[in-house]
């Protein structure tokens, strides 16, 4: 094998085929337009705009983010203008980019999820939906990601309502993430995204106050990578479903660890904030890393932990 041989980065998440496995995580890439002058959006394997809800939500009171050791705590509270506004104002731009756009939706009830899925049927060019059943900042949302039965119901409800591929985004804040992944798989999700943020808190002891306006929030960034990697590994070894790894990914080494653990793709989150061009750089450097294992494609290395 010569070192110039091209490496096949393409990947499949159930019915969804992607040119490469590097996606940008929901809530960490705005609505992509903000990044247009900074990142070559057409290179990305996929783009996930910020989660949308049925009605507009103002989001939580500040402070909404606090930095902790090698991590970031957030409690944004799904600040968004609702699905109508999204379809009218963000979708025309998103669909014009040319990269697969996976829209993240969240609801307080199964009806909300189904309603949002039906509305997204109007969105011509939609690559897939990601069901955010795991946002820690909204009461209601997290329950679908912590109870296998309700997770099954939501995923199958949406699956019946829309024909496009589905990703289900899971929370690590459970005893057995594999049990939830199994429920989502049984209900027909094309892949599971592991993971959303890890519940956490920061306190100013002098003022005896929580630093986040919402008091508790979700931890992300390099600090949570070991947790996310463990989740991917556990799901991969117990459930037969494609996995999208998320959590603290910022380098090629990070990506490779997730692929070996069983992820078919990864999403880049917090790293977009401090290194906005990270995703396209990873796409450029992945082939060398895959080649160094003697492989010619991403598919050959996924889930090859020994």
């Amino acid at each position, binding site marked *: 094998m010569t070192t110039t041989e091209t490496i096949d980065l393409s990947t499949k998440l159930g019915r969804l085929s992607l040119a490469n496995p590097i996606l940008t995580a929901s*809530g*960490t*890439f*705005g609505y992509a*337009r*903000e*990044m*247009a*002058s*900074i990142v070559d959006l057409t290179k990305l394997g996929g783009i996930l705009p*910020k989660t949308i809800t049925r009605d507009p939500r*103002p*989001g939580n009171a*500040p*402070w*909404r*983010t*606090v*930095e902790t*050791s*090698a*991590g*970031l705590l*957030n409690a*944004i509270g799904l*600040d968004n203008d609702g699905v109508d506004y999204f379809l009218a*104002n963000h979708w025309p731009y998103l669909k014009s980019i040319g990269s697969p756009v996976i829209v993240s939706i969240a609801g307080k009830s199964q009806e909300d999820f189904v309603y949002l899925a039906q509305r997204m049927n109007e969105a011509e060019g939609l690559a897939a939906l990601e069901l955010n059943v795991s946002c820690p900042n909204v009461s209601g949302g997290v329950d679908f990601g912590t109870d296998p039965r309700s997770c099954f119901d939501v995923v199958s409800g949406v699956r019946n309502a829309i024909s496009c591929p589905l990703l289900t985004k899971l929370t690590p804040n459970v005893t057995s993430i594999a049990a939830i992944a199994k429920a989502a798989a049984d209900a027909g999700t094309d892949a599971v995204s592991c993971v959303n943020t890890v519940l956490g808190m920061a306190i100013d002891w002098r003022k005896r106050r929580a630093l986040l306006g919402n008091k508790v929030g979700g931890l992300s*960034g*390099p600090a949570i990578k070991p947790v996310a990697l463990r989740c991917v590994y556990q799901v991969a070894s117990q459930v037969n479903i494609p996995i999208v790894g998320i959590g603290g990914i*910022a380098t090629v080494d990070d990506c490779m660890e997730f692929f070996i653990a069983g992820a078919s793709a990864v999403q880049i989150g*917090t790293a*977009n*904030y*401090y*290194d*906005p*061009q990270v995703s396209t750089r990873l796409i450029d450097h992945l082939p060398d890393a895959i080649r160094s294992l003697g492989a010619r494609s991403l598919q050959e290395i996924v889930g090859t932990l020994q």
Partner: protein
Amino acid sequence: MPHYACNAQFQTCRIIENLQIADDTFRIRIESQAIARETLPGQFVMLRIHGCNDPLIGRAFALYDRYTEDHAQWQGIDLVYLVKGKFTQALSRLSEDDLVAMNGPLGNTFSVAPVDHLVMAVGGVGQTPMLAVGREALGSQKFGNEVDELIDGEQTLSRNGYAKKVTLLYGARTAGRLAGIQDFRNAGFDVRLATDDGSIGEPKPVTDLLLDLLEVAPATESIRIVCCGPEPMMAAVSAIAKEKNISCEVSLETPMACGIGICFSCVAKIRQTDGQWDYQRTCVEGPIFDSAKLVW
């Protein structure tokens, strides 16, 4: 809709010097021709320590000044920072030739509508944007890449600015914390100081300086206030501006995680045309807002 951060450059840059200029206060000089060329007064950059994951995310710093050694082109920018927590402590330990990651210029700018008297009310470390703001107002420096005309040090006056007179009202906890006074005086601002502890002049807040100034201001003189500092101080200045019917812009220092509009952490309550408020992102819709639109 605008393309946010459309002039922003994301670069790894060399530190030229990092000098203590007052108690707990440093001025850092960072090489970047591109950012120096593009930046406008009131804008900010996001700064990180190159290759360092703890502190992880960038911190926002207002443009203080630009520098040139060859007097042919702007070679980089100066920032002034107060050592406060994790990031600024780590930054204060860096020296010449160390690397930082810098993203900028970011954010909007103050209004440049003509006015007789631009009054800059600042507290804490809020003086930092005002050197560039006042210079542009007086017309002693031009900013932005459409102007290639360069300035030889402080001497050359290029063209008319937008204000006839600039006053800096600067409040600090104590005299040792006042940073950059000489720079402001050299730039031709009328500088008036106040300290909480009376280590310079009477112990009084910066709002008293503002009230003193407004009391004797000629009725024929048009005034605009620009303000940056701790939130309670900005709220108090805004209240005075409202009462006296003077236009006032404030630069908010809300905690930011990205600086480019993608995280929604930097929000402030902004009054909409229908009278309701909505959270807006200070990094892209601000950091500068008309104080009448802010819900404090």
